[in-house]
């Protein structure tokens, strides 16, 4: 199987406490507190998500895990090793998919993989078959000898994932892996990421696409202003913070007074009123009976996006 890993860590023994363990982790940029003493653990073999609005501290957290941005205080261990003292050891078992596409424009797709393998000290005779294998895995064989500029956005993202796998990493860090891609490309990438998980890899990703997080992540955290607001499995978070369903009504004075009369709690969501509930039919029926049939009422299952917006608010960032 491609890049399968057994259940033991690189040290030979099982990693106690998780692949990544953060406690009181803090990052300051002069006055700005980008990451405000957070704690989390990523378990082996899971897909773990970091969600949050722009500026929430997700990318900064990723960079500290990758050992390219030093933490200000707290502890952060990857594979049981301290990020301050074991940078090379940690980096050699990591695969990184950065937010910005930083493929090397001076080389073809295939040469990009070979040049990258050299940074890991992988001998050429090992790197060559692996590069071919990865191009096939990401369905890029036809683009083998094409320069980076000639690749589409989706192809570049796929190549960057192939590049991140060149050292057969045990932990893959993906900062917005499907940003700006069409649905076809996104589905292909999701499939590949699930394949990697099935092969025993641990994946950590950030994303703004909540459907992506809901589909992929075993567990996730929602961050805002440098803090972790909530943590859990997507389905549990939806049940706990949004209920099973949402009843949506167009926001009119009549609807507001009606819901107030029924003593139902609702959220203002732009030009809609939202009622989060586990008994959507009762709420909808009660509303229609009390307020007549002129208004549009919609009932739909609650999603992670509902949780996200309830937790982080609707105000625009940046």
């Amino acid at each position, binding site marked *: 199987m491609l890049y399968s890993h057994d259940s033991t860590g690189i040290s030979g023994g099982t990693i106690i406490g998780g692949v990544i363990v953060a406690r009181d982790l803090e990052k300051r*940029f002069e006055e700005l507190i980008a990451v405000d003493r957070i704690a989390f653990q990523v378990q082996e073999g899971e897909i773990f998500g970091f969600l949050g609005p722009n500026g929430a501290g997700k990318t900064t957290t990723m960079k500290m895990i*990758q050992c*390219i*941005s*030093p933490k200000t205080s707290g502890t952060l261990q990857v594979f049981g090793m301290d990020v301050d003292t074991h*940078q*090379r050891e940690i*980096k*050699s078992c*990591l695969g*990184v998919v*950065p937010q*910005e596409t*930083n*493929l*090397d*424009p*001076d*080389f073809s797709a295939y*040469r990009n993989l070979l*040049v*990258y393998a*050299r*940074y*890991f*000290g992988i001998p050429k005779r090992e790197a060559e078959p692996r590069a071919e294998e990865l191009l096939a895995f990401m369905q890029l064989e036809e683009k083998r000898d094409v320069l980076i500029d000639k690749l589409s956005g989706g192809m570049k993202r796929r190549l960057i994932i192939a590049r991140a796998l060149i*050292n057969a990493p045990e932990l893959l860090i993906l900062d917005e892996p499907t940003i700006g891609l069409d649905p076809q490309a996104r589905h292909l990438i999701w499939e590949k990421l699930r394949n990697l998980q099935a092969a025993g890899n641990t994946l950590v990703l950030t994303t703004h696409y909540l459907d992506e997080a809901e589909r992929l992540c075993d567990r996730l955290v929602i961050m805002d202003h440098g803090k972790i607001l909530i943590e859990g499995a997507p389905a549990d978070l939806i049940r706990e913070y949004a209920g099973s369903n949402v009843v949506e009504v167009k926001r009119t004075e009549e609807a507001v007074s009606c819901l107030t009369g029924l003593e139902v709690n609702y959220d203002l969501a732009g030009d809609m009123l939202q009622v989060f509930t586990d008994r959507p039919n009762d709420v909808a029926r009660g509303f229609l009976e009390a307020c007549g049939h002129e208004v549009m009422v919609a009932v739909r299952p609650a999603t992670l996006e509902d949780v996200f917006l309830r937790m982080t608010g609707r105000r625009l960032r940046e």
Partner: protein
Amino acid sequence: MIDITGRVLSVWRRNLDAFLRTYRVNFIPPFVEPVLYLLALGFGLGTYIETVDGIPYPVFIAPALVSISVMYSAFFECTYSSFVRMYYQKTFDAIIATPVSTDEVIAGEMLWGATRGMIYATLMLPVLLLFGVVSMPSSLLLIPFAFLAGLLFAGIAMCFTAITPSIDALNYPSFLFITPMFLFSGTFFPLDLLPQPIQYFALAVLPLTHVVSINRAITLSAFSPINLFNLIWIIVATAFFFVLAIGLMKRRLIV
């Protein structure tokens, strides 16, 4: 502390590979430049000058042409080209996500700048031989010395790259530092024609002065004690700027 292992070579190799991929265009300057300068200045203007300190003018400027080429190739490689890799292509970011350290990325860039200077000096040598303006075998020393001189200019360049706010601002050192050096370092006329304070100034702060002085000794096969002073100056300055460049770059890149 500076953290450099053999992985520095992977950065150097990346640049060599990119250079060789476009070798045709990269090999033009070292062949064309000496021909143009020798024809225009050496044999054109030179007919009015005939000799400088008893040396035929084309022979006088030949080592300067090598020095200038090494300076330009190393300096521009580690300013504009390194800045493009760092800022626009994000190549440095991609590399430091691997076990290669930031120190190794910067050191690899400077070693490559020096190598590029050495490649240019190597390619110029047969052209200069053809014109009969350099003596052999001493002129073979131009090649290893070009690496040292290249490393000096690469280090100076990398310091500017580390502090420049934008690619346009790199024009300041190019025009205010490199261009005056091109003219006032004993390149096309002897340093002692200048007023004495300016001579001292050139010897103190214009690195090209020392490079030209050594290269001229090499091509004329006529060494003097001053060349030892030149060499020590260059070694000390090279070590200083090499370390400074890595420090400044780490301050810029590691946040």
